[in-house]
């Protein structure tokens, strides 16, 4: 891919990432036959939360996809996708805090302290903050190797986020389990990849030594 086609594609992807927000905005005002239903605040919170999780999973899919297809240019989209995950999670929280709880600090703190599914959701949001703040090129350079270590937090965040969804469901966990399964595949791939590389590293030198010792 040429630099200019990546730039053009970035504009397209950026626009696509805003489509869910645009649809929700239209639904808020009941435009185009869209509607949030009888309980609009709850629907808004749920939709924004689920889009946050979807973007987290899409972000986590970039690396496996890149390795499986060899399309290395995919990595150029990872930061944007990750920031959109943060964006939707933040909106999810703001609608909960603002519209649902009307910024009632006491009620919000009580929720975070007393309700485990909110506690872990809040933890995931707070952990996303440093990742969003260190997503610039300058911060990447400044942090060097520590940057990658820090950004491994995304695995913890994704687990907390999906768990937050699963725990919040009243009874029918099917939809939440779909998110759990996708996350399991994405994290499982990394585990497998890590294990294979470790084995290859361990086995690598010995096999090359063997080759030298016993030339065919």
């Amino acid at each position, binding site marked *: 891919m040429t630099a200019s086609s990546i730039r053009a594609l970035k504009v397209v992807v950026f626009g696509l990432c805003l489509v869910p927000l645009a649809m929700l905005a239209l639904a*808020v005002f009941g435009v*185009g*036959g*869209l*509607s949030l*239903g*009888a*309980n*609009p*605040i*709850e629907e*808004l919170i749920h939709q924004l939360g689920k889009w946050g999780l979807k973007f987290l999973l899409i972000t986590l899919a970039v690396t496996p996809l890149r390795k499986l297809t060899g399309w290395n240019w995919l990595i150029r989209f990872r930061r944007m996708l990750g920031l959109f995950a943060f964006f939707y999670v933040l909106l999810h929280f703001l609608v909960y805090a603002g*519209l*649902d709880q*009307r910024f009632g600090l006491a*009620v919000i703190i*009580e*929720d975070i302290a*007393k*309700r*485990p*599914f909110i506690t872990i959701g809040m933890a995931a949001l707070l952990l996303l903050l440093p990742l969003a703040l260190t997503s610039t090129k300058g911060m990447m350079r400044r942090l060097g190797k520590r940057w990658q270590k820090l950004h491994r937090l995304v695995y913890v965040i994704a687990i907390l986020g999906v768990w937050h969804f699963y*725990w*919040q469901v*009243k*009874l*029918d966990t*099917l939809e939440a389990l779909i998110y759990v399964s996708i996350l399991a595949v994405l994290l499982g791939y990394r585990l497998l990849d890590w294990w294979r590389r470790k084995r290859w590293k361990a086995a690598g030198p010995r096999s090359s030594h063997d080759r030298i010792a016993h030339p065919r």
Partner: protein
Amino acid sequence: MNSSSKIRSWEITSESNYLNRRQFIQAAGLAAGAGAAAALPGRALAAVRELDTVPGPYSTDEAPNSWEDITTYNNFYEFGTGKEDPYRNAQDFQPRPWSVKVSGECEKPGNYDYEDIVGPNTLEDRVYRHRCVEAWSMVVPWVGFPLGDLLKRFEPNSDAKYVRFKTLYDPQRMPGQRRAVLRWPYVEGLTIAEAMHPLTLMAVGVYGKELPNQNGAPLRLVIPWKYGFKGIKSIVEIEFARRQPDTSWEMAAPHEYGFYANVNPEVDHPRWSQARERRIGAGLFAEKQATLMFNGYAEQVASLYSGLDLRKNY
């Protein structure tokens, strides 16, 4: 009295809301085919018939929710677990013919047709607050008759301490039952005193019309001081029991849902607060309102529970 000429309680208490509903019905007709969400209410109105009713006691003067809210935002897992699933999936359900099996500790067990059950009663309009365990609420203008009037006709004996109710089990007609989300069929229960209480309603309609399928046609309970899930829908069995019956939500998650399930702002659900509730239809910028003890019916029902630890018997 002709049902088209008389004034119903909700018309007195909330004329503007009723007018909204009329405009809404017209708009729904105009919007037919204009897109899924806009077309929702038009279909909801399709099958319902006007009922002949008289004003009943205990009605609240709070503004009732719109027909659209009441018939498109439902928990009725027999037709799916999404809030709009019952509206979407219950349209083809045929609530007639319908019969109810009456059994247990009574003198007149047997199978009773819908007409046998409903016929002898005067249908009353009763506008009740409805509080869901999920911390949202509505105001619903039900049509029905006191459950106690019906139960007395079966002549329960002195061993009848509880009444157990069962929903239809028919996965062909109730597609939600094809997945084991809850243990089917849905079962609920009341103490005999709760069942005989004059607030407890056997509902057959809403807004002066026959119950839409998604609201539990053709027969459902309304116990306004309890969380909504106690109001069992599409009832096919009534049993007078000696012992407290197992109930569906209690069996599904006993630490979260109890047999009594009285609305109580002081006893939280383990995963969310019950102190306040979101009134459906109040809009995007409305504040939640305080939940009232026994959903505001404490004056009528608190004496039923004197001496009972409501924190333990949630």
